[in-house]
């Protein structure tokens, strides 16, 4: 467990040692603000809540989270550092979790820096802060899901651009798996229970219910399982691909 902390700390510091952290945070804050006010009609709606802000999170994450996760393992493999890291006296799981948690905390910092919006809405009206808190929790869980997928994909390649593109595609499928665009692909040949199972995998369904203020244990379990499975796959992929 101590090693997870050491890996985590090194990884987190490396974000801030390069311009990556600042570029990401500025872009995230500018985009989330612009989307909320211009496309979300924050003022015109006349309601004191942050729904227009949270509704855009899945779409923001779709492009920005793979940009964070793409380097997690691809860079490690390209530079040869993976050989150093995995011959240190740590276990694979410690390395995988340490790196994932660092990326997750980093994303969380960016998300929590949107707090001026929360102050604004409290200044202008009297919102239900419980709902806002729930939506933040849901949003961070969803970011964790995106990151776990991205981390696993990043381990499959040395090329960060490929890691980014494939992560976006898979995240998009997970986001939309409740929508006809994905379900129609399976409906023709897969049995109904598989189609239902795929529909229940949708990030959007689970995220939307949390962001309305209902923290259902099932939604939490969904995200926790999703993260756990993808991180496990991440470890398996590294084990398989490290010789190449």
């Amino acid at each position, binding site marked *: 467990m101590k090693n997870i902390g050491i890996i985590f700390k090194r990884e987190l510091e490396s974000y801030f040692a390069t311009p990556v952290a600042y570029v990401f945070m500025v872009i995230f804050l500018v985009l989330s603000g612009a989307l909320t006010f211009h496309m979300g009609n924050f003022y015109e709606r006349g309601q004191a809540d942050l729904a227009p802000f949270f509704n855009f999170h899945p779409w923001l994450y779709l492009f920005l989270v793979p940009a964070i996760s793409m380097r997690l393992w691809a860079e490690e493999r390209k530079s040869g*550092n993976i050989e150093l890291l995995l011959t240190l006296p740590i276990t694979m799981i410690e390395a995988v979790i340490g790196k994932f948690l660092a990326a997750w905390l980093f994303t969380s910092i960016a998300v929590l820096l949107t707090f001026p919006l929360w102050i604004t809405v409290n200044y202008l009206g009297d919102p239900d802060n419980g709902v806002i808190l729930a939506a933040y929790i849901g949003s961070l869980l969803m970011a964790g899901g995106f990151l776990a997928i991205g981390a696993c994909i990043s381990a499959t390649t040395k090329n960060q651009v490929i890691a980014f593109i494939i992560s976006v595609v898979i995240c998009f499928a997970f986001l939309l798996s409740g929508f006809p665009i994905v379900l129609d692909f399976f409906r023709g040949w897969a049995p109904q229970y598989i189609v239902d199972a795929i529909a229940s995998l949708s990030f959007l369904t689970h995220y939307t219910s949390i962001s309305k203020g209902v923290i259902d244990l099932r939604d939490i379990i969904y995200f926790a399982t999703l993260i756990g499975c993808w991180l496990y796959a991440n470890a398996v992929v590294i084990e398989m691909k490290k010789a190449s």
Partner: protein
Amino acid sequence: MIEIENLVKKFGPLTAVNDISFTVEPGQVLGFLGPNGAGKSTTMKMITGFLAPTSGTIRVCGHTVEGDSLQAKREIGYLPEGAPSYGEMTPIQFLQFIGDVRGLKGAKRKERIDTVISQLHLQQVINRPIETLSKGFKRRVGLSQAILHDPQVLILDEPTDGLDPNQKYEVRELIKGMSQDKIVVISTHILEEVDAVCSQAIIIANGRVVANETPQELLSRSPTGRMDDVFREITSAEELS
């Protein structure tokens, strides 16, 4: 002690390491020689636990690398091929990170870091990002991380590659100085290095051990008394067969 028995590594149809066995005792410096692609690096990657062997066993200080890999990894200091490190970190941050992972704490960690920095003459660059350093300094940063925890076993993949003649000399002296009670395995292309630092030399070609003797014995094989000739004779005979 490193004990290697019947080590085999296959990558699909390719057999990179084909039934290698040898032992290294404390106090020995073993030189690994062989043409490119002979299986030197692959063998080192298996000793350090990075790659799993297809078959065969490796024991490092009594710990089997497959079964007791964390204990084995604690005993080993490893410089991988190309001396990778985290480019955005400075040498001092990098060494602190390695020290933490190696379980060095407080004053002990500081003392070890100061020691390796002076051993490898890194004082002038400790606060510069590693990616901005010259090849020679990068290599020395890699070496410093390998010896930081004063390991019983040192595995160095081409430790003097990219160093100038003076630096090569110093690194060889460093290796010799540390080898008294330790086990050192180095791989190299530079044949004079075998004569300069190694007490035992293994020549590998096509994944097999084709010679395992002292440098003096190797030299006496050739009428010219030159290591280059011995190397060429042994490895080209193997490649033709």
